[in-house]
């Protein structure tokens, strides 16, 4: 059992901390990979005066994160009703990571992740109906019902999965980056992994090749503190953002509960990657509220630990307060968004039950493409 007092030092959910841009540049040319506290600036009142943070942008983040939250809650409900089978890993609590990174990506870039993937798909602009219908195993799903929660893709939205083997998406994402470089299309691969994946050997095989060949890949470690039921400190020696240091890959820790901090960090380092400097590792300090999967009672952590994060650092509540406190919008405006999201999610749930199961002939299709 991890007690809250042991756990707190690993969380950076307090005052917003982000990297000072000028010092990042110095940092890189000096070849130092770890930002020290002296290189960070704390903005104690939690307000960031970034010109990119217009009302429109903040409301969009709010909307995008809320969509993921409500979608996942609905997925949990449908799972409870027996409409979704197998494994179902919810993203609740981590929304700021994918929404912040996605906000910094361009339409040339590709995205790949592991099996806690619903949020990534929604952030990539995939249709919530198609995602939910895949969860229920229906023909209207992104994989025609043949992939399920962990295996979904959209070439159109440049989302390359949705992979069920821990760590396997890392060489794949590195290969997508290789393809970006080979084609010279200017794209970067945003390659997500959890804190559990970072101890897989193939991750380091990938880091080596990516650094060696200066591949355009942004490695994002979503550190939600637990690889299934094993806490990060029981599984991983050292700091995760330093895991690329042997290969000369710069790594940074980012407050993954603050969508604007995530976006700022991603934007900063994507520019570095696009300039041909090779890969970067961003460790997003985040937290999942639910169990590892639906059938995980999460006995390995205290309720107090979860409720403390929910109360003090929830990415959506924090942004909501900031929007209200800074006068970007009023309660009524946010309530309109809440209602819109509710309709979208209910429509997705409805579609996912109305869509038919796959035609039996689909059993034998999509094994091979015709030569």
């Amino acid at each position, binding site marked *: 059992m991890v007690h809250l007092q042991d756990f707190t030092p690993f969380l950076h959910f307090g005052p917003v901390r982000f990297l000072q841009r000028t010092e990042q540049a110095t940092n890189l040319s000096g070849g130092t990979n770890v930002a020290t506290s002296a290189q960070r600036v704390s903005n104690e009142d939690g307000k960031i005066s970034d010109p990119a943070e217009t009302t429109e942008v903040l409301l969009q983040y709010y909307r995008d994160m809320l969509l993921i939250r409500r979608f996942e809650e609905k997925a949990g409900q449908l799972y409870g009703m027996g*409409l979704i089978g197998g494994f179902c890993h919810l993203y609740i609590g981590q929304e700021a990571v994918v929404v912040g990174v996605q906000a910094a990506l361009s339409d040339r870039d590709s995205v790949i992740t592991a099996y806690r993937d619903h949020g990534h798909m929604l952030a990539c602009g995939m249709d919530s109906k198609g995602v939910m219908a895949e969860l229920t195993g229906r023909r209207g799903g992104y994989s025609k019902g043949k992939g399920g929660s962990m295996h979904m893709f959209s070439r159109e939205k440049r989302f390359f999965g949705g992979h069920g083997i821990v760590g396997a998406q890392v*060489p794949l994402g590195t290969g997508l980056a290789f393809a970006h470089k080979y084609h010279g299309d200017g794209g970067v691969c945003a390659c997500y992994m959890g804190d559990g994946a970072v101890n897989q050997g193939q991750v380091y095989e990938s880091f080596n090749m990516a650094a060696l060949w200066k591949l355009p890949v942004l490695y994002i470690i979503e550190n939600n503190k637990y690889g299934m039921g094993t806490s990060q400190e029981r599984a991983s020696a050292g700091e995760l953002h330093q895991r690329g240091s042997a290969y000369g890959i710069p790594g940074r820790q980012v407050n993954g509960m603050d969508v604007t901090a995530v976006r700022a960090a991603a934007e900063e380092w994507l520019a570095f990657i696009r300039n041909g400097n090779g890969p970067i590792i961003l460790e997003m300090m985040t937290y999942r509220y639910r169990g590892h999967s639906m059938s995980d009672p999460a006995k390995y952590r205290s309720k107090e630990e979860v409720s403390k994060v*929910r109360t003090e650092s929830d990415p959506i509540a924090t942004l909501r307060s900031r929007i209200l406190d800074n006068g970007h919008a009023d309660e009524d405006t946010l309530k309109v968004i809440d209602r819109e999201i509710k309709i979208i999610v209910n429509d997705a749930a409805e579609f996912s039950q109305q869509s038919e199961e796959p035609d039996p002939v689909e059993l034998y299709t999509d094994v091979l493409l015709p*030569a």
Partner: protein
Amino acid sequence: MPIDILMPALSPTMTEGKLAKWLKAQGDKVSAGDAIAEIETDKATMEVEAVDEGVLHQILVAEGTEGVAVNTPIARLVGEGEDVTAGATSPTPMTASAAGEATTAVPPGSAGGVGATPIPAAPVATDDEARFFVSSKQQSVREALRDAMAEEMRRDPTVFVMGEEVAEYQGAYKVTQGLLAEFGSNRVIDTPITEHGFAGLGVGAAFGKLRPVVEFMTFNFAMQAIDQIINSASKTLYMSGGQMGCPIVFRGPNGAAARVAAQHSQCYASWYAHCPGLTVVAPFAAADAKGLLKSAIRDPNPVIFLENEIAYGQSGPVPEDEEFIVPIGRAKILRTGRDVTITAFSLMVGHALKAAEHLASEGIDAEVIDLRTLRPLDVATLVASVAKTNRLVSVEEGWPFAGIGSELSALMMEHAFDHLDAPVVRVTGADVPLPYAANLEKLALPQPEVIVKAAKDVCYRT
């Protein structure tokens, strides 16, 4: 409108559970995400969270109640300030949907959901290959493979070669000789010794619209990479509903070489041929090596291309026409005969031909078929041959259990049972890790004499 909160399933197998504790009371305000109750299953205690917001109007199942069926309404939620006139719902399970009504219909044309095997079509004529041999040159398998890659790289700029020592060293077995000079280091790429990594990187590149040719120094080392080959390369098209094609070739020497012992000598033919989503090719002749590698590179799916170190130096006629290709999925009858069919692939084809010559001297007329492609197997050609000879001897270097010969034996049971005059016989490598000592190694691998004996056995000759 009031919303019923239903007893949730907390695992794929849960059908009922105990409502251990209510965390909210009637009249409490509830927000989405709030824990409202604790449910106990035989495995764990878990919290139920509200999905909608409102006021907990009515608790329908008291805490402490055991055996509450999944989907039974356990509470009712109403909007804040909402007037509720509807009566209490009796706690009976609701049917969630038609999801449980599994369809078991089998599509027409399939051989069934269990143990489905391909139904043989008519044998394919190979005359279209023969016409290319009008103008040919003598080449080693090694040179033929190199030319195949070079021609395809000239034809398609998305084709590239990667692997250990493929560029500056010119290939551990010199198969990629000269490619670096012609195509440069962006397309002929030396990798670190990192099989799992570069196999996965290759698959990712194939998802990114490239056509990688990934060389394994030997297929023994591909065991480090097999997760990426099977789980990523072979399954993703299916799991993506047909979106994620993966045009990649994994190639390199397979099976025993000479005196390199167990860890460097395994035949992986049956391992890969087992897997839907993969195509598996194992040529013997130089012309087939070239023609099939060109087909493999053009194929939109992952292809396992099994070469053989000993065969690299063997020569044969190779058509000069660059349009010469050998279609995947087509066996080749190398020697026609009436009395017994001998099938083989890769290096064992040479042994089978030697055995057939010897058998001819004893008056047994053997038909020798080079399988060339192991998946999809050319069942039609095999069945037609066995219909004529009524006997089958399968030769392979790999182990007997669940090997290619085992599959051939089953296929003959399914498709040629009435034609068989003798049981199918498998000539295989010995069921041991390959030994180092010269005499033991020879004993462990199929030799022409063993094939001769097997053929005579099925012909009931001594």
